[in-house]
């Protein structure tokens, strides 16, 4: 009855380059993301959170350790299309319509035209953009383009969503709206999410656990549980929300205090 863990990372390390100029981006990363769980990676710039995400996505190979996605090695999971990914830039292909963009992963893996169309429209409906199926990406705002990118990431109904600061380029109001949308979408699809972000409130609002990372060489310093009773508009002004934010902030700072010691 229990699904395999969405992501299992064991003793992951990543070094770029060789010899004296080598950069140790990550070291000793152990993390398990359960099926359907929402986990954020947060940390200062250069702590390797994007690198870690790309290791899970099998876009980069780790130097040490092993990574399993959905109970399989990461490479197998990528070939089997077990995850969907969204980047900071929506990366929509400007020569395809909105619908065409969502159909892309479906077309690449052999779905026939009718099935593709139906599924794409369903996904656009899920993100609230069904009316814009025939538009061009250049006609949509940044927030809308990101929603299309998310719809596209969900195209193959993956058990895992990987997101690299997808709302980073958006303004605060749009960001908050998108966060609520994402919560709703995840509830409906039941996908696990690994979410990279800079923003403490965003991490707290979205995730069940927040993984705090240290600057280079990146390692996990804290894992903060966020047992919020609800995740809706009222939550943003609730006591427990601010409490959790403070906890994460202290965790981020706590690391700095350690560095100050001789």
């Amino acid at each position, binding site marked *: 009855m229990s699904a395999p863990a969405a992501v299992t990372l064991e003793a992951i390390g990543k070094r770029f380059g060789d010899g004296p100029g080598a950069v140790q981006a990550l070291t000793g990363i152990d993390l398990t993301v359960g099926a359907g769980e929402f986990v954020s990676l947060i940390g200062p710039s250069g702590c390797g959170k994007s690198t870690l995400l790309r290791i899970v996505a099998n876009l980069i190979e780790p130097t040490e350790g092993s990574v399993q996605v959905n109970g399989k090695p990461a490479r197998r999971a990528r070939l089997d299309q077990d995850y969907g*990914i969204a*980047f900071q830039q929506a*990366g929509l292909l400007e*020569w395809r319509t909105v619908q065409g963009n969502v159909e*892309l*992963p479906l077309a690449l893996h052999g779905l026939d035209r009718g099935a593709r169309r139906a599924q794409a429209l369903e996904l656009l409906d899920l993100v609230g953009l069904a009316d*814009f199926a025939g538009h*061009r990406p250049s*006609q949509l*705002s940044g927030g809308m383009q990101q929603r299309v990118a998310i719809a596209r990431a969900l195209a193959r109904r993956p058990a895992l969503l990987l997101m690299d600061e997808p709302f980073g380029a958006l303004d605060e109001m749009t960001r908050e709206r998108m966060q609520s949308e994402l919560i709703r979408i995840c509830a409906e699809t039941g996908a696990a999410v690994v979410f990279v972000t800079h923003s403490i409130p965003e991490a707290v609002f979205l995730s069940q656990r927040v993984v705090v990372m240290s600057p280079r060489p990146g390692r996990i310093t804290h894992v903060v549980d966020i047992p919020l009773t609800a995740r809706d508009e009222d939550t943003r002004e609730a006591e427990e929300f601010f409490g959790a934010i403070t906890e994460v902030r202290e965790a981020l700072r706590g690391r700095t205090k350690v560095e100050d010691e001789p």
Partner: protein
Amino acid sequence: MRTGAVWGGRIFKGIWPPLIFGVAFIALWQWFVDARNVKPYVLPKPSAIWEQLREHHSTILSAAWTTGQNALVGLAIGLVVGVLAALLAARLRALDDALTPLAAAMAAIPIVALTPIFNTMFASTSSTPRRLVVAIYVFFPIFVNTLRGLRQIDPVHAELMRSYAASPWTTTKVVRLPGALPFFFTGLKIASSGAVIAAIVSEYFGGLQKGLGPAITSAAAASAYPRAWALVTAAIALGLAFYIVAVLAERLAMPWQRPEGAVS
């Protein structure tokens, strides 16, 4: 979405300065020739040129037709070979390394100077030398620009394709080829008008006496200056026609580049 009316208004706004300038220029020209009594061998009147166009329109048209055909055939050949070479060079590093510096060198060389060589290689009564020169002339901008387009890929698209475990060919088909289209059309716009220029210039090297080039030289030699200018006007119109077709092809092939109104 913005309506056609607003779009039309934008075109109008962009058109009136050059249009007014053009009309004023021609009017000034007409007045200047009359007022300063400029001799026809220096600069004929626009009205005299117009007269010649109407009077000799059949000969002018047939000369333009010959030149246009040469330009078209050469353009087609140079286009196909250029695109194929670019596709190959994008895949094979060695080919890229050999052709790209060659292309840079050829940009400095007057390709039309090769016409006499081709004239001896083929019969001097054939149009092939001219078409070949045009083809070579067209090949380089098409090759260089298309290759540039094929080589560049948005890093986000590259990562996306990798996350889909897409094969290199699939990535080329889905992302690189459409992404290369704007670059290809940049090359096409240069090549299309260049084809007409190369066609006319290659006609100056002897060989067949059909076409606009020889017609202009013989008209100049016979001191029929308004007629010569009329032929030049036909040449200009031909060059413009080729360029406009290239621009239209670009608009047709890339409908997503039209700047329509955005929705929020």
